[in-house]
Structures are given as C-alpha cells and as structure tokens.
C-alpha cells in the first residue's frame, strides 16, 4: 500500500472513531433524556420516595443533594483557597512544597470509595457521628479538595506577575496584594472551577453511601431549627442523595418501579449537571467581561 492510500485509510479510521465517540455521547444523553424526562413531573420532584410501592418521588433526595453540595462547598472552598494561595503565591521551592504537591496528587487519584471509607472509619465510627450529612459533606470535601485547590492555584497563577509587582510597589503587604488584587483578577477562573467541581460533587455517590448513608428519613421542611432532629436543616441526620438513590433502587431491587425512578432521577441529575456546566461557562465569561468592560 502506498503512503497516499495509507494516509486516506488512516484519516478515514480517525473520522470513524470520532463519529463513534460522538455517537456514544448522543446515545447516552438521548437515552437518559428520552427514557427519563417522561417520568419527571411536579409530583415526582415534590413527593417522598417509596421503598416497596410504585409512584415514589425524589423530593428528599434532591434536597439532600443540594444541601450536601452547599455544605461541601462551604467547607472545602476556604481550605482550597488557602491551599491554592499557598501553592501559587507563597510556596518556596523546597522539600515541603514538593511533599505537599505529591500529597495533593495522591489525594486526587485516590478512588472515591477509599475516600468514602476513610470518612466512614473516622467520622461515622471513630467520632461517632453516625451516618450524617456532616460526615458526608466532610467526605465530599476530601474528594473535592485536590481538584478545587488545583483549579484555584491555576487561576491565581494565570494572573500576570506584573499585577503583584504593581501592588507591592505601592507599599501594600503581600497578603493585601493577593486578596485585593490577585484574587479579584482570578475570580472568573475560580468561579468556573467552583461550579465545575460542584457538578462533580453533585453526581458523586461512592464517597457517600457509607458516610451520608442510604436512607432519607422524613423531615419537616417547615422546621428551621438545625438542631431539631426533624428539621430538614439538621446536619446530623442521615441523607440519601439523588445519586445514591439511583444506585440503591437499582441494586436492592425491592422498588417495583426502580427503572422509571432511576430514569427520571438520572434525567434530573444530568440536567442539573448540564446547567452547572453552562453556568460555569456563562458566569466565567460574564465575570471576565465585567472586569474588563468599558462601563
């Protein structure tokens, strides 16, 4: 075969592979939306789940997912920001920094079950928190920290050094230069990073089944006292999330309409994550425009 023909064949194969991948994605999204959306209704989203009867909804799971997400971000963002600032602004070139970078790499490549099991061991068993939203949020924080830290570090590093020098040469402290000048300039990137990580956290289940638990006790959405056991805000109650729910109804096989419920819940999950993705793009661009705009 001459080289010209080989070239054509190879190009053809590449086109074929690309088409296949695009096809897979279209199939996945199509399947989820086509089988799932018909099951999504107001009733589905606003009623409680049923274990042994058909017709259950996902109200509590959806709320739990969102609540966990918010708690996770509240815990992980400050730590990730501090770590990101250390890595991009302060980190000296020494063994300590090297060790820390390795540690973060290791953490980011740990399987999420292992992270979840660690959370189970430490918080559920050792600290006796039991299956709880708090334990789940901490486990998700571990899961979220490395990627969020890295994305914050990268956004900070993308800010030109000239900006730091400008701040310093005006007699500002390094800390004020970072918080007042570098951080705002990095904000579009940081926002995008947070929202993308929110999408990951929202869909995560393996780290949660033994930390936040697999049950969604009935809670009252009118009880605003977070210390009351029946309150929806109580962080010490077990909380099955949407993703865990999909896993559970499929593996336990006691819910008669497991297929419909998982399709519907998957569709909701995917739509929310798509929204996160769009929001990340949109908000990042918007913040950047706002920053450079000729208002």
């Amino acid at each position, binding site marked *: 075969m001459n080289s010209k023909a080989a070239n054509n064949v190879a190009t053809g194969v590449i086109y074929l592979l690309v088409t296949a991948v695009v096809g897979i994605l279209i199939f996945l999204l199509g399947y989820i939306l086509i089988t799932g959306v018909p099951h999504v209704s107001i009733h589905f989203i606003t009623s409680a789940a049923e274990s042994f009867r058909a017709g259950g909804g996902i109200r509590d799971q959806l709320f739990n997912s969102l609540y966990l997400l918010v708690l996770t971000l509240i815990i992980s963002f400050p730590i990730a920001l501090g770590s990101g600032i250390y890595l991009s602004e302060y980190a000296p070139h020494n063994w300590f920094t090297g060790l820390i970078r390795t540690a973060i790499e290791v953490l980011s490549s740990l399987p999420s079950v292992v992270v979840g099991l660690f959370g189970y061991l430490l918080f559920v068993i050792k600290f006796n928190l039991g299956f709880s939203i708090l334990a789940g949020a901490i486990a998700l924080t571990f899961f979220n920290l490395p990627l969020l830290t890295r994305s914050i570090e990268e956004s900070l590093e993308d800010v030109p050094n*000239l900006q730091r020098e400008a*701040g310093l040469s*005006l*007699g*500002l402290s390094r800390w004020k230069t970072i918080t007042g000048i570098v951080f705002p300039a990095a904000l579009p990137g940081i926002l995008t990073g947070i929202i993308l990580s929110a999408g990951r956290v929202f869909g995560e289940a393996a780290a949660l089944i033994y930390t936040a638990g697999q049950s969604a006790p009935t809670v009252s959405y009118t009880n605003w006292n977070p210390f009351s056991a029946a309150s929806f805000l109580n962080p010490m109650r077990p909380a099955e999330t949407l993703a865990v729910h999909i896993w559970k109804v499929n593996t336990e096989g006691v819910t008669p309409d497991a297929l419909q419920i998982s399709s519907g819940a998957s569709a909701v999950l995917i739509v929310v994550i798509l929204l996160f993705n769009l929001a990340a793009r949109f908000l990042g661009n918007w913040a950047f425009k706002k920053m450079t705009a*000729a*208002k």
Partner: protein
Amino acid sequence: MQTYSFDQKHIIHIPTEKALTTENLQVFYGDNHAMHDASLEFPRYRITALIGASGSGKSTYLRCLNRMNDAIATVKGKIIYRDTNINSKKINVYEVRKHISMVFQRPNPFAKSIRENITFALRRNGIKDKQELAYRVENSLKSAALWDEVKDDLDKSALALSGGQQQRLCIARCVAMKPDILLLDEPASALDPISTAKIEETLKELRKSYTIIIVTHNMQQASRIADYTAFFHMGHVLEYDKTEKIFTNPQIKATEDYISGNFG
C-alpha cells in the same frame, strides 16, 4: 564584540541635597553576579536617567532601590535613604515602598475601575475620607496628564484604556501615594510617540516635587528630560555625570561608543 575595561570609571558626587545613595550595591541571581559595585548618588528634585545596553543591569539596579528584588535575588551593599540603610533585613519594606514607588515597563493597571486603581492602595493605607480620596484622584490624574481624557468615566475598567493611558494611570497611581522618589523602568518603551511625548511632559512637571530615576533605552529621551545620567555596562556603572556632559563630552570610551551608536 569589543571589550571595555571596568577599571576606568567616571562617577561624580552630587553637591546638592541627595535623595538616595547607594554604596557598593551588588546583586546576585543565584550564581549570576548581575550587578557589581554600583555606588551612585541621586539629587533631590532632579531626573536621573539610567542608560546602557540590554542586559547591562539597569532594571536589576532600579528594582533594588525599593526592594522589589527581595524575592528573586541576593542584594548586598547599602542603600541610604533619609540617613537609613534601607537594604537591611530589619527594615519594613512596605514603608520603603510607600516612599519609593515604581512604574514598570509594561503598563500594569489593576483589573478594577480607573478610580479604584488609584484609591485602592490609599484606602489600604488608612485614607478613608471620601473628599480626600476624590481630591487625590483628581490631582494625581491631572499631574499624570490623564484627567481630561478620563474625568467622565472614572468608573470604567482601567483595562479598557489604551496602552499610553494605562501607563499614565500607573504613574498617577504612584503619585497619589505622595511618595518621595519615583522609579520608572522604561515607562515609554511600549508606547507610540504621542503617548511618549505626553509622559515626558508629565515627568518634567513631576520633577518639581519628586525625585525621579528613570531607565531608558532612548538616548534622545534621556537628553531631553534628564538632569543626570548614569551609564551601565555589564553590571558595572562606568560613568555618571550631568546629562549634557555625558552626551557632549563623555570621559569613558564605552559611554562614547554607546551614545554614538558604535557599541558592541
């Protein structure tokens, strides 16, 4: 390339009041000995130009003067400001930089509005009074010859300004801090001739109340605005004198070759 001796130097002392003096200033980037023994005196309320070929150490020297090299280089020797050696570990660098401010080669406004670019550092330094802030914004922009161009859109993002305007904003930002000494590292090298002329005008005006040290590649610029000129060559200061002396009657061969364009 022709080699010049580093033994022959012509460096004058300043008879009038000195704003800043360096004694035996040496800079090391790791093993790279980038600055050997620079001893210069800068007169108050005058413009001093630092000239020399690329890589001769002008920026390196200038950045030492307000301790911007702290993080990247080792600096030895003395920098005397108000009878104090400010090149010492015990000195509060943030205070130093309030008195000795720097404008960089490339304009670097903050990603904030024009007004905030000027007020940001002022606020952090405890100036909260609205009137005082407004007054300083107007005054500094006027002394940087930018006021007329931007007075109607002070809340516009500074990044939307042209390069020349951005650089003048950076000068205004420094001036608003009311420093003693202004350091400028090739402030006009990225700008068109009109913006350059404007900045030169600005500097001549500022000379009345500030001591200015400016790095420039542009011989004409040096001769137009500077009272004194220092010539740098490969990490040494070879000649330092009144500007007209340097340009009409240089004492050192290297200087002569450099200003007549026969260098290297």
